[in-house]
């Protein structure tokens, strides 16, 4: 209650009890709140702050919100991971009211003291999204938009967004930042209720059907994941994927990832960034660069013009050189024309010299040939002598052969004589020999016959 001597007087005329010390009252309030029934609440988690000893967040739904706190030890014991308390997570919490009374140096704070926490909706929703994401990916619907060519300097930009949303201003701010001031076509559509997805789909189809927009931006500011769920609609995503105009998506915060981010040509974290991405060329800088390029081209063009005097000078120098060459040629011709006689005499001397050399060469050649022929005649003569000697020798040999033939017994037998031999083949040259042999062989020119010697018929 505090020192009673320091208690000030109450407000004149007030029937309220007190005044009491605020700390005392705060403590009573804390005790009162702590006595309230402990309950379970559900909603979306937002603005999570983690300190060394406590985790703070807000639990929200469409009708209201409540600041919550949880001892860090209790939260860690749940082993949910950081994902459980990401903005937009759907949770059920259990606990009761609490009040931090504060002090002279610290602020009081009211909170719902959470002792139990369970994530529920997000898991089921994430599982559904994952299935659809995998289906679209498997069908190749993430690729077509990314293959479309995006104009560096679009003239007309279509924007699908909520009519009263902040995203509209952000898109305009982004385009202004780019220095872009072309034509923007707004296709307003609800961006968070159950009618949103079909309306957004129709707006995209209508914009593309005009054939007048170069790129389409789909923009929506932050919100709970439930609010952004329309951008995960299957029909919407399939429509975007097959659109022939590039779509740049900017839905929610950078932590949110809807399916339109996957199928779009480009996904940006904010509408401002999406607008800037729709115009890759910074127009203000582009104008300066074009001016710079024009100046540089002008400089190069001027250099060509500056080169003209140099070319004229070169032409003059070439002309001078040409005249010098002509003069030199004329001098040479004049020199030649002045000395034709010398030239003829020089040629005559050269020809005479050649003639003398030819004659001397001819003589040398005749002498050489004569000596060579004499040597060849000598050789032939010696060969003829040798051949005559050989002929004489051949004649002598022939005579010898004839003499030998004349003494050949075979020739004698051919003339009618007979050769008498005994049985042993020894020649019998006398009658006594024949008688002694008794049995003889008479060999005539054509054949031999055997003969027997009869003693009574001796003829002396």
């Amino acid at each position: 209650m505090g020192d009673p001597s320091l208690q000030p007087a109450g407000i004149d005329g007030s029937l309220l009890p007190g005044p009491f010390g605020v700390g005392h009252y705060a403590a009573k309030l804390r005790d009162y709140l702590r006595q309230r029934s402990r309950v379970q609440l559900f909603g979306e988690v937002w603005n999570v702050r983690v300190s060394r000893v406590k985790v703070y967040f807000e639990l929200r739904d469409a009708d209201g919100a409540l600041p919550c706190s949880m001892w860090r030890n209790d939260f860690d014991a749940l082993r949910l991971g950081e994902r459980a308390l990401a903005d937009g997570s759907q949770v059920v919490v259990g606990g009761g009211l609490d009040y931090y009374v504060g002090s002279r140096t610290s602020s009081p704070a009211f909170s719902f003291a959470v002792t139990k926490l369970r994530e529920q909706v997000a898991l089921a929703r994430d599982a559904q999204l994952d299935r659809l994401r995998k289906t679209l990916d498997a069908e190749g619907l993430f690729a077509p938009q990314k293959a479309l060519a995006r104009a560096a300097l679009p003239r007309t930009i279509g924007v699908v967004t909520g009519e009263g949303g902040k995203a509209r201003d952000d898109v305009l701010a982004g385009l202004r930042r780019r220095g872009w001031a072309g034509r923007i076509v707004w296709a307003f559509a609800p961006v968070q209720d159950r009618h949103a997805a079909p309306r957004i789909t129709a707006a995209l189809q209508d914009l593309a059907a005009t054939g007048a927009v170069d790129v389409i931006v789909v923009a929506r500011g932050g919100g709970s994941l439930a609010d952004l769920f329309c951008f995960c609609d299957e029909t919407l995503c399939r429509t975007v994927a097959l659109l022939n105009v590039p779509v740049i998506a900017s839905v929610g915060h950078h932590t949110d990832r809807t399916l339109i981010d996957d199928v779009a040509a480009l996904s940006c974290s904010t509408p401002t960034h999406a607008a800037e991405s729709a115009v890759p060329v910074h127009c203000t800088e582009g104008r300066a660069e074009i001016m710079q390029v024009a100046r540089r081209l002008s400089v190069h063009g001027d250099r060509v013009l500056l080169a003209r005097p140099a070319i004229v000078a070169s032409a003059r120098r070439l002309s001078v050189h040409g005249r010098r060459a002509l003069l030199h040629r004329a001098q040479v011709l004049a020199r030649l024309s002045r000395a034709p006689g010398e030239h003829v005499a020089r040629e005559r001397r050269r020809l005479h010299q050649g003639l003398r050399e030819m004659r001397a060469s001819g003589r040398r050649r005749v002498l050489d040939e004569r000596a060579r022929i004499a040597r060849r005649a000598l050789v032939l003569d010696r060969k003829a002598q040798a051949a005559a000697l050989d002929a004489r020798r051949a004649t002598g040999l022939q005579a010898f052969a004839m003499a030998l033939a004349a003494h050949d017994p075979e020739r004698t037998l051919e003339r009618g004589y007979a050769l008498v031999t005994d049985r042993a083949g020894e020649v019998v040259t006398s009658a006594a020999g024949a008688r002694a042999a008794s049995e003889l062989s008479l060999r005539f020119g054509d054949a031999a016959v055997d003969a027997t010697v009869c003693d009574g018929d001796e003829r002396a």
Partner: protein
Amino acid sequence: MAMSEPEQPLTYEHASARLEAIIKRLDSGEAGLRETLELCREGRTLVELCAAELEAVGQGLEELRLDDLVTRLEAGAGS
């Protein structure tokens, strides 16, 4: 007989890329007199094209609703 591909209109990005190549070639000092003249002539044409494209998105922001655009397109098609 094979049909030839229709010539695509020159875009800002192609024109600016070509300009960059032209400037690079001119700055190299390797281009002869005739080539320099031709590059300067081509470059001036491209500069005019880029400037016209930038001019088209620099006149002032024009905001239309989709319905207005459709009406305008239909009127243009009907006339």
